[in-house]
């Protein structure tokens, strides 16, 4: 962990991540043209989550951070997901 931190990430790994992100962007644009209806939104969000994970894991190299960052990051995402979940729960009980 410290060893890689001091030497820096290999350029090929970073280039591979960029290529993956380009591919995922092409996929999400292509899928959006297929007119899948509401299913299309979920596919787009899933691809966006996958792209974010690549940026977090490779470009931001979150794994090299200590437990404090890992736990607090997951807590922040969990709280946001919880709030969004509560919102949809609330909306589903509203008329119209």
């Amino acid at each position: 962990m410290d060893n890689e931190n001091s030497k820096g990430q290999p350029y090929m790994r970073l280039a591979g991540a960029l290529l993956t992100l380009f591919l995922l962007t092409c996929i999400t644009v292509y899928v959006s043209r297929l007119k899948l209806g509401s299913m299309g939104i979920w596919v787009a969000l899933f691809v966006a989550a996958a792209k974010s994970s690549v940026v977090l894991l490779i470009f931001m190299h979150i794994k090299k951070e200590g437990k404090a960052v890992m736990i607090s990051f997951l807590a922040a995402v969990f709280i946001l997901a919880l709030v969004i979940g509560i919102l949809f729960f609330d909306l589903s009980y509203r008329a119209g």
Partner: protein
Amino acid sequence: MGTAAVSDSQGSRFGMWLFLYSEIMLFGALFILYAAYFLKYQSGFAAGGSELDLTLGTANTLILLTSSFAVASSLAAVQKGSMKLSGAFLLSAIVLGMVFLGIKYFEWSHKISAGIYPGSAAFKAADPAGHGRIIFYNLYFTMTGIHAVHVTIGLIVLMITFAFTASGRISRDNHALLENAGLYWHLVDILWIFIFPMLYLIA
């Protein structure tokens, strides 16, 4: 001395992460607003989304992803001791960020000249898709506007970092500023990764 510098770098990075969480919550609130209105005005949102230029939106996505790669590579180069290469990567990230803002300016000015902007009387009067299209564009200008402010701040930070790299104040043993600037820039990238499908891919 060396140990103290390492722990300071870790502390400042943790502080940066805490700041990034507050940014996630700021944009999270906008995403929640978007989701609630989207459920109510799906056809209006689709009408608004179909009027955006998908080619420019996709181009901007690829540009921002590449600039993120350049910043990550700049940090890797510093850690390998290649200061010139690090500066070159950083400079290319700055140029790409400026191109992103240029495209965004072009898109905004095109919409505004067509009478599409928040509070436009002509836009409200000629709205064929009802209230949803107006709300979509209000969210479009708010989300891309706040994001553009973040890109601008990120560019200023990257420029300061570049000046420090050129003057030797950032080195292999002391690059906390570059790490933190990179974290901020990557977050700006992640935010766009979510904004892009919400605005451009819902037609």
